[in-house]
């Protein structure tokens, strides 16, 4: 129930925070850039890649910049102590809020598809809609778990902003968001497979493509497993973070 309270609260607050929705503003613009590049190169077959990349970037950006900052923002707002003092599980409240941010970030998919159709008249068909929907769902859950971990880490980090900024592009690369991991040097393949996003982006691209998708369940399992690990680590880290702040007396420090 604590998670549900957090989820509802975040859905209520997000429309009043345009700064938190910036990723959804840039997603359609990036779609146009990527599509223009693929079309200019004469690679209409890569249209699916061009619309998926901005959607995945929006998913990651909102997790990183909004969900990841939730605990630090509560602290800055002076409400963290009161939140911790309630009988609700603090970690559950934060995970609920992170889930709401992730849900809203999925609008990036809709925007990317609409931008491609509205500006270039490109309709990217999803050849395997069930696989696509399942991948989006499991990826969103994995993202929520990972963002919970980030929110705990950022509140304990003095230079959280620098840390956040440095986590954008490396993860776009390791997550195969723009360029499939298979096109990267071999030595990057192993670390990229530890990032759930690399499994998500590959599976989503395959779901858009007309050819048969192989190994759906193991690949979904990899996303879910890595996401679950992130969630467990996130819950543990949140608990540890709050305990540490209670011990050091810095829960209320802005």
């Amino acid at each position, binding site marked *: *129930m*604590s998670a*549900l*309270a957090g989820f*509802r*609260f975040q859905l*209520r*607050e997000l429309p*009043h*925070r345009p700064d938190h929705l910036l990723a959804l503003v840039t997603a359609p613009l990036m779609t146009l850039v990527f599509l223009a590049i693929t079309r200019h190169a004469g690679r209409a077959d890569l249209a699916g890649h061009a619309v998926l990349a901005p959607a995945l970037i929006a998913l990651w950006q909102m997790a990183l910049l909004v969900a990841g900052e939730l605990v630090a923002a509560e602290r800055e*707002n*002076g*409400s963290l*102590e*009161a*939140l*911790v*003092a*309630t*009988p*609700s599980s603090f970690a559950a*409240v934060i995970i609920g809020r992170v889930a709401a941010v992730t849900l809203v970030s999925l609008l990036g998919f809709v925007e990317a598809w609409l931008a491609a159709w509205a500006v270039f008249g490109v309709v990217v068909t999803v050849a395997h809609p069930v696989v696509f929907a399942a991948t989006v769902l499991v990826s969103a859950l994995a993202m929520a778990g990972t963002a919970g971990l980030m929110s705990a880490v950022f509140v304990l980090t003095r230079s959280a902003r620098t840390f956040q900024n440095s986590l954008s592009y490396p993860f776009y690369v390791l997550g195969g968001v723009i360029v499939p991991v298979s096109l990267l040097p071999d030595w990057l393949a192993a670390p990229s497979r530890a990032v759930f996003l690399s499994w998500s982006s590959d599976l989503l691209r395959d779901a858009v493509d007309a050819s048969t998708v192989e190994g759906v369940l193991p690949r979904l399992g990899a996303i879910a497993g890595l996401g679950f690990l992130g969630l467990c680590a996130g819950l543990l880290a949140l608990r540890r973070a709050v305990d540490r702040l*209670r*011990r050091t*007396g810095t*829960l*209320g420090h*802005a």
Partner: protein
Amino acid sequence: MPDTDPAIRVERLHRTFGGGRRRRETVALDHIDLTIPAGEVHGLLGPNGAGKTTLCKILSTVLLPTGGTATVDGHDVVRETAAVRRSVGIVFGGERGLYTRLTARANLEFWAALYGLRGRGLSQRVDALLERFGLTDRAHERVEGFSRGMKQRLHLARGLVGDPRVVLLDEPTTGMDPVAAHDFRDLVRELRAEGRTVLLTTHDMAEAEAVCDRVSLVDGGRILATERPATLGTWISRYASVEARDVPPSTVDELRALPGVRAVHHVPPDRIRVETGAEDAAPAVLRLLVDAGVGDVSTALPSLADVYLHVIGDRGMRVNK
């Protein structure tokens, strides 16, 4: 005062900050003992840095003590945090801590949900609190447009949203105008009438005197004395000072001779300040000045520092029940 188990019991409670290789250790609470019976309104009176907020934070479980024990409603604040959190409502002073882009109602609904309220019960509690704190008409406005006093009222409503048996009010009148501060005193009396235990921290002796059953004077992380408010009233009147202008030298001599007058200071260019140290001394000084035809006279209540200096210094560390 009801003869029941204490709502708050603090034994040898100790809290330090810092103390690493780079920072000097600061003692915020120095092995304090305090027992507050259920249903009592207890004031913690002391200057900034006295340890009042530290005690409130430990009792509300948001800060861990370095040593000693504290129980709220019979539950240990370190080992039984969930039970303590169900019993306690806390209001921190100041304007921060609200979600200013949301409405007052949305703020309260969120906090109510965190206290386990759902559906109709949640709506009824939120409605009742908005009504109680005079915010019903502004319930659907964003908090960012609220005055400081309204924000403070919303803080108070938030503190009561879980229907707590123990209410911790940490400088709740900070930023309130005199009318709101007066209403606040009524609220504390209502909380007492409802059987809740209230721990109120304040700088304001008059406020503590008006609403508290007992008051503890805190400084340097120690409880220096615990008294009934009537004693505070005695201190206030005993250590009042009187200022006057153009007082004839003969009258100054008479003032110096009055019983209970501790000192008469010249305040350049033409004023004197008479410091008293007995309960009836200030009225006697005023009478003498008026009889001498001195028209420009004013009185001033002692500062907390004066009370510490003159009263606590005299009394040592004794705690009165």
